[in-house]
């Protein structure tokens, strides 16, 4: 398992290889909590938000929404309590970057949340971590205790009048709780069903108070943005996608792992063939899902010799998207029908059941996949699946429905042969 930066100085991964990197003293000895100091001594909340805006930081959770803008939606004048919630539910298949950030550098997340808390006048933060990551919750709790003891979390932080406490919270096995409004329902102790938007969490979120939900990687980027200044951070990446991005690489490469690349890293082919150690057992590249299971699958020939730029715009141009940066590499041995079936089973299992199209649609699609896999494929099935996806996409209550249809639509479109060979007439 590799954890390293390519094409740039390690930023988020700066400390991960230090001994005891999760300890407060190590963190501080390596520039930790300097940004917090800087913020508390002389920056106004608006200054902070402006720096984040300048940094062109986009949410790393999958939606890629500009973080600075999101923060500016929080009504400053609201008398209600305001909350900062860290989305550490990391359940998107192929994604495991947040896990290593929290495991190796928990204080970076705490510092990021404190700065967000300051910018949004929030006195309370919650870290919603997927229940399976229990050991990470223990690590975070230790780090939080350290920080509390050092006066970095809790009342009058660093002797200022800024107070903000942070708590961990556990999920219990539900991918949908990564969706920010479902996460909030879950954090309030309910079933993890998404909520209607509007109102958006920034206006009415946790306990119907203004709430900002950010991914781990988004928040851990904040200290560096403050330290180096928004502009400098943005310049690490491209104009619209600032800074660096963590990619979780898995599948048929020799060196899977977490890689930090500058936004706009200019060659996906090189990334796979060299940086990630090339294809496992010298097999041929067949397909890549670059942004976690919920994005379009790409054919090798959309990548080989195409200089695919790895940032939000570049990947859209190449026919997929960054998503959560869960980079799944598949070689010639993979049957895309099988891989798509596998993902559809995932979405069926994780559909919260609230709305008709996602609940019934994913169930139906899995049944069709199973039937075809059992050798009872029919010529009309590809068309049927596409039509079912069309009835889900854009009709579902939350984006999970869309996320479930995109892999199928792109797979059938881009790997028709893997489907066609199964859809023979059984009569």
């Amino acid at each position, binding site marked *: 398992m590799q954890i390293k930066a390519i094409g740039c100085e390690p930023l988020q991964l700066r400390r991960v290889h230090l001994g005891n990197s999760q300890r407060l003293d190590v963190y501080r000895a390596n520039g930790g909590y300097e940004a917090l100091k800087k913020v508390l001594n002389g920056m106004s909340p608006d200054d902070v938000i402006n720096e984040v805006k300048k940094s062109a930081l986009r949410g790393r959770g999958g939606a890629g929404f500009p973080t600075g803008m999101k923060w500016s939606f929080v009504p400053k004048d609201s008398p209600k309590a305001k909350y900062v919630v860290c989305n550490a539910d990391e359940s998107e298949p192929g994604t495991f970057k947040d896990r290593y950030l929290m495991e190796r550098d928990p204080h970076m997340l705490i510092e990021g949340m404190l700065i967000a808390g300051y910018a949004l006048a929030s006195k309370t933060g919650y870290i919603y971590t997927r229940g399976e990551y229990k050991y990470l919750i223990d690590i975070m709790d230790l780090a939080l205790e350290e920080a509390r003891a050092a006066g970095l979390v809790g009342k009058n932080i660093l002797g200022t009048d800024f107070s903000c406490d942070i708590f961990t919270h556990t999920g219990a096995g539900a991918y949908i709780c990564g969706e920010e409004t479902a996460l909030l329902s879950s954090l309030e102790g309910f079933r993890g069903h998404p909520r209607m938007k509007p109102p958006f969490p920034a206006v009415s979120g946790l306990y119907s108070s203004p709430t900002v939900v950010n991914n781990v990687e988004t928040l851990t980027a904040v200290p560096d943005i403050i330290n180096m200044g928004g502009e400098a951070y943005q310049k690490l990446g491209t104009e619209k996608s600032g800074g660096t991005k963590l990619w979780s690489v898995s599948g048929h490469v020799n060196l899977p792992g977490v890689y930090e690349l500058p936004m706009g890293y200019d060659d996906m082919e090189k990334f796979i063939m060299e940086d990630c150690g090339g294809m496992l057992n010298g097999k041929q590249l067949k397909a890549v899902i670059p942004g976690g299971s919920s994005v379009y699958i790409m054919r090798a020939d959309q990548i080989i010799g195409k200089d695919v730029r790895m940032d939000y715009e570049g990947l859209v141009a190449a026919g997929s998207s960054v998503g959560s940066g869960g980079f799944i590499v598949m070689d010639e041995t993979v049957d895309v029908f099988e891989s798509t079936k596998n993902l559809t089973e995932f979405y069926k299992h*994780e559909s919260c059941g609230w709305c*008709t199209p996602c609940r019934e649609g994913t*169930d*139906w699609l899995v049944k069709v996949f199973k039937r075809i896999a059992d050798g009872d494929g029919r010529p009309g099935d590809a068309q049927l699946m596409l039509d079912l996806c069309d*009835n889900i996409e854009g*009709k*579902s209550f939350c984006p999970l429905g869309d996320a479930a249809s995109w892999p199928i639509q792109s797979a059938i479109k881009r790997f028709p042969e893997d489907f066609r060979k199964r859809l023979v007439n059984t009569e």
Partner: protein
Amino acid sequence: MSELINITINDKAFEVPKGARLIDVCRDKGFDIPSFCYYSDLALQASCRMCLVRIEKMPKLQTSCTIICTDGMVVTTQSEEIEKAQRGMTEFLLANHPLDCPVCDRGGECELQEMTFDWGGLEERFTEKKNYAAERYLSPMVANDPQRCILCKRCTRVCDEWMGEDAIEAGGRGAHTVIGTYMGWLDCSQCGNCIEVCPTGTLLDGTYRHQTRPWELSQTISTCNFCSDGCQMSLGTRGGELKRVVARDRYVNGINGEFLCVKGRFGHPFVNHEDRIRTPLIRYKKGGKLIPTTWDEAIRHVAGKLDAIANDHGRNAVGVVGSPRLTNESLYVLHKFATELVGTENFTTTDAFSLRSFFANLGGPLATHRDIRHAKTIVLIGGEPEELQPFTGKQVRQAVRNGGAKLVVINSVRIRLVEQAAQFLHVRSGSEESIVLALAEAGSDSLAAQKAGIEASQIAAVRDLVANSAGDVVVMFGGEIGADAQAVLAQLTASLTKPEGARILLHPLPLYNNSVGAHDMGMDSGLAAVQMLDAAGGEIKALYMAGGFLPSQLEGREDALSKLDFLVVQELFQNETTAHADVVLPAASYAEQDGTFTNNDGLVQRVRQSIDPLHQSKPDWVITAQLAAELGLDFGYQMSASSVFREIGEKIPGYAGMRYPVLKDESNPVQAKHQISSDPVASQLSALRQRVENLPDTGEKNYTTIRVGHELFKIGGLTDKVPQFHLLASGNPRPETTRVSPLYQITVDGSIAKASVSGD
């Protein structure tokens, strides 16, 4: 009238009120929008995704149930794109649906079935194996076929928002989501509203399984004959049998919408019960048997006896008693019989308590249930509507939950509505009246507080709440409030300070479907039923009764009836009273006659004949009229209830001008005009002060937790005939298996049937 904005629907321009919901507007303007999960006045769900429309400048289709109209909005409700999406949703819903309409009790009344039918041309593309789920019972009343569920969650929302019970919920996740309860047994008030609002055959009337097909039933709109809320309902009858009762909005559209309680919905089987009294019966000698006879013989016999006794002992020796369950028509004729024909002063009703003093001093209009839903402050003194007037309970709950009303509960026990209360004054039992006193004269705060065992500041706080109410104030009271306190309470409209423009409305909580009507028809003479019993054998020698005494009234007076020279009872069933009767006459139930009930809003609502009178039974007023004729006075009604009611419209001031045609639309009921008085109540006030001063100011408070159903499930004369109620009364035990009705598994031993009676 709120501000208007312009919107365009399907190229037509409309002016609509600002803030209107798009789905409502479209439907109001005649554009049909399919939907399952949307249900007005329930929390938004937006999960069925049927109500999709296209709105200009918005990405993808939008759910019209979640859209508030904005000025200049351009909407399309019909297009290829929209129809494909909506057909797609229906197809999804049908995928795992068993499609077993032929054996479904909801067939012909199912919204899913209708929608599919309306689309037409639906090819079934789902050829996979369906997710099977077995039928089961959730309680004696509620049957459940989970596989038919479309998860619109109307049921879970009414259970929570209407009933405040949250007894039924969605468990599981994704395609395995299932509506149910922990361990699969439903412990709740069994209102069955979840059944009513279910658009499919998922939740079913457990007492109606496979009885008839819905379309074979003839529907008759009538008024419930249990509590004083007067819910409108549709009686489903076939072949002279009352098969089921619903409030389904396709048949009936009354004050209660689709709401009913366990009694209204499931209490009806008494009507066709085999124990109904079939013929007139005469007991020729005391201690002898009741012997079937003809109507002519019975009427002649009764007339002769009453005449003789009146002659020998004077007119007051004949007592006349009517049940507050009877129609206004029967009570009016009974009153006329007592006063004009017999000329006795000894007449009354068997009601549990009298509202005479309240109405005599009424200082303002009665609150309708609509007023209650939209009130901003509600003061509930005594009573327990959620068990005794469930629809009032629901309106109060929704006023608080959906309307932001502030509720004050003044009670000696922590009734369930306390969960919604902004203030709970937990008073010593029997000290409720002291709060009425304090509300009327601030000077008595400390006295009242001391007697009630609360802080004086709590009472002041109630007064403030009223004074600063954001809208109308409703004051409700139960049977704990006696005559003097009723007078004072009825004048709170004057004595309480209220904000500009807000009204103070009053809402009595009597127990019976026609308690108010019985008062209006003059039968509430102020004499308590028990006083009649105590005078039995003394001043009173004969009783002519339409409806027997309550067991609670006979308690400790077991021999009173046997002291009478002559007792005539018109009844549906044999009971403690008929056991002593010399003549028993078979009366027709509410389902077998025309008439009216007056509810606790003062609304005069129709009772309509749904089946012919069973056996030889007759409506009570018909019997009374025949008896009068036999005694030489022809009331001249040509046997038509409407002619009786016409006379009521002429003789009873509050009912002036009323005729059946005026009452024909249950969706806008007519309120009786009760006389408003502003006469001072000084004497009652000082009497009340005396009563309060004499109250003990020590004594433990009652901390028992109220279990849902503790009043609703008590067996009464009518629910006694419904086996399911005996299961509920005995704690709703979970049967061996939930696959078959508990009725076939648990035999209810007769002793349970003897549980005491209240409210029913």
